[in-house]
Structure formats: C-alpha cells, structure tokens
C-alpha cells in the first residue's frame, strides 16, 4: 500500500466513515420501523413516553375495552359475502343501526365509506382491511387526524352504550366512570331541585305573613 493511499484511507476513515457507522447503527432500528408517525420515527432515541397500542401495554389495569367482538364476517375480505339483500346501493344504516350513533357520523357527517374505505367492505379484522388495528391509524384515522398513532386509533369510534350492563365487561372504565358521574349529577339534582323549590315556597309564605314571622 502506498503512503498516499494510506493517508487517503486514514482520512477517509476519519472523516467519512464515522458518520456512516453512526447512521448504520441507527438504521437497523429505523428499518425495523415503529409504525408511528410522530417524533418517534423522525427523532431516533426520543425518550418521549407514548402508549403503544395494540400490544397489551397501556391497558390501564384491564379497565379498557376488552377483547373485541368477533363476528362471522370480521375476518372476511368481503364482509357482506352471502348477506341477503345486500347491494352496493343499499344504505349502510339500513342494516347497521348501532354503528350510526357515533359522533363522526352524526355530527361531522363523515360517511361510513370514508373509514371503511372501499367496496367490498372488508371485515374489520381481515388481514388486509384498512381498519385492521395494525394499520388503522395510518390508513384511516390519519387521513383526517394528522399524526394519528395506534394508541389514538384505539379510540372506539362505535362506542358501546356506556350505561348498558354489557359494557361493564366490554369497556369497564367507561361503564364505571359514566355511572359514577351520572349518580353524582342525578344526586345533586335530586337533592337541590326539591330543596330549592321548598325553600322558595317557605320564603314566599314567610313574606306573605310579614317579616316578623320569618323566623328571625
């Protein structure tokens, strides 16, 4: 090896290679991919805490939505395969009344197809379904919610009726939180409304009878 080449190699190693090594070391991690769209992807080694869902973490002591309900069609590529009376022209809400009560549909007028994507509608857990939890955040929610993460996508769009007894098992925290708040609210009104009414009546009659009998 000539001296010239040695110096060149040394310079090469000193000036060019180290950054390349650094990148290579990180690249392996990056290549694995986290699937997240936020800082975690763009800032390697970010220590920011985030919930990774689905995957078991962040279940908050099992108080969250439990195992999803799996239907006949949940794993089908065409959820409506073999469904009688189904046709692309039939409105979704003719058959799926419980799914028409979420705030996306009711308040924002977002159509079913904007989230369930294309005909034929895939079962939610079909491997290639856009709503499959492994890609739901990216394929569906992120269309409108910039930076949606899997944790975000664990929000239940078609939320169960929070006060129904079935919700105690399917989504305990929702059930208990809503019941506690309802009892608090109803309790306050049940106590204060009659109390205030009686109070008003009492003062009214005290006033009628004249101040002296007001009880002072």
């Amino acid at each position: 090896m000539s001296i010239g080449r040695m110096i060149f190699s040394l310079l090469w190693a000193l000036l060019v290679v180290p950054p390349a090594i650094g990148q290579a070391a990180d690249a392996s991690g990056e290549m694995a991919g986290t699937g997240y769209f936020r800082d975690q992807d763009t800032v390697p080694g970010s220590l920011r805490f985030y919930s990774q869902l689905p995957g078991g973490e962040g279940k908050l002591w099992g108080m969250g939505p439990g195992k999803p309900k799996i239907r006949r069609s949940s794993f089908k590529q065409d959820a409506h395969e073999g469904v009688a009376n189904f046709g692309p022209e039939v409105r979704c809400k003719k058959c799926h009344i419980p799914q028409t009560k979420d705030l996306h549909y009711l308040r924002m007028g977002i159509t079913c197809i904007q989230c369930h994507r294309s005909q034929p509608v895939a079962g939610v857990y079909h491997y290639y379904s856009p709503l499959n939890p492994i890609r739901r955040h990216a394929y569906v929610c992120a269309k409108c919610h910039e930076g949606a993460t899997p944790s975000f996508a664990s929000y239940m769009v078609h939320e169960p009726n929070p006060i129904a007894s079935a919700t105690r098992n399917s989504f305990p925290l929702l059930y208990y939180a809503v019941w506690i708040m309802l009892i608090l609210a109803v309790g306050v009104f049940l106590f204060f409304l009659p109390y205030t009414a009686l109070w008003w009546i009492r003062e009214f009659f005290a006033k009628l009878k004249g101040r002296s009998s007001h009880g002072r």
Partner: protein
Amino acid sequence: MADERTRLKRFTPVHRLWHLGLILNFMILSVTGIAWMFFETPWGRGLANLFGGYSNTLQIHRIAGLVLLAGLALHLIYLLTRIDWKDFPRSLLGPETLVFQLVDVKGFIGHLGWVFGINKLPRFDRWSWWEKFDYWAVWWGLMIVGITGLMLYDPVLTSDYMPGWMLNVALWVHRIEAVLAMGHIFTIHFTVEHWRPSSFPFNAAMFDGTMDLEEAKHEHPEWVARLDKEGRLGEALATPPPVPLRILYFVFGYSIITLGVFLLVFAIANAALLTLF
C-alpha cells in the same frame, strides 16, 4: 339620601372581577359546548352557525376552556397570598373563610328545619352553607371538566400519553359534568340568588360588592353582630351604587340569566332529538 351608608361591603373588586370573568367564560363555554353537543339537531347547528360552523365553535370552546383554567390557576395563586401563613392550619377556620366547618353542618340542618317550619332560621355568619357549597362546586366541576377538557383539547397528542380509548371516557365525563354544571347554574343558582322572594328580582351583591345592611341582618345576622362587636361595622359600610351602575348590573345580569334559561329550555326541548348511544 344617596350617600347614606346603607350597604355592607361583601366582595372585593378582585372577587367581583373573577366572578364576572367566570360568568363570561362559563356562558361562552355553555353556548359553544351545547352547540356541539346538539350539532345533529337543527337548533344546535343554528347555534354553531352563529360562530361560523362547528370548527370555529370548537376552537372558541377550546380557547375559552384554557382561559378558564388560567383563571383557576390565578385564583389558586390569589388564595395562597390570602392565607394567613403565620397561623396556618388554624387560620383556615373561622367565620371569614369558605372552608366547611362544623357550623355549616349545623347551619344546613337548621336551614332544613326552617324550610320545613320546624325551627327558626339559623343565624348565618358571613358565609352560609350553600354559599360555601357554590364556591366549592366550581372547584370540583372545574377539576373534572378541566382535566377531561385538556384531554380532548388535542386527542392525538393525548393518546401519546394514554391509550386512545381514554378519550371515549373523557368525552362522557366532560359531557355529564358540563350538563351538571349548567343545570345547576341555570336552575338552582339563579333561583337561590335571584328568584327567591327575598332576593327577587335581582341580587346585585356579587356585581356591586355590597349588600343591603337590613338584608344582611336577616340573612347573615351573626356576621353583622360580629362586625359590630369588633367595632368594624362602621368601616364595612358603603353607599349604594349610583343608579346608572345599578341599571347596568341589572341589564347585564338579566341578559345572562335569559341566555342561560334559553339554553336550558331549548336543550330540554331538543334532548329527545339527541343520539347518545
């Protein structure tokens, strides 16, 4: 006549300013919140259109919520400066503070007895039990509605710190607490402060900062007696506010009351059109 000192100082300018700010904020939050909650009904959509559609409505709601939380933080700082730290735990008690004490239990039972005509009206000091309740109800309400409101402020960011399904919970808790707060203010608070025969039609104490001395002798006799005994009654007296101010208080107060009742009535009338689950 006008400079006769017939009124008793009750609220400082800071109290009145905060109450005014709370009113304005609460009403903005109520209108925008109800508009969003009732957005699927024509009435709710109409309300939201006043603010230029739902996204503006939500934006105003979010900003008003932040302002309210900032107000709460400032109030907390104010409280810390008001506490007599030298005599600390004991200074929290006594007739001048809003901390619930044994007298309030007695006051409550006595008042209940009076409502049913069993005993005489209890002799309240500066704060009656329901006035303390009103104060603390704002605290508890703001805590619940504030925490869930912050969670809903930016749902994507929130779900970095907790599972996204917490937003389902947060929205319901936020909603119920807000309905509780509005229902309480628009019925119970308005009745107790303004529509009771002894306050009807309008009680301006929180706007003007003073209350009628004769009225105070009936509603807060212990307070007046204590001030008298301590020789502070003279300095606590004030002249009635000038007539233009009184008119202003009345007009402002009744605009707010009308708005509250309007929201309440229409919310109840439209409740059947809401899809909750």
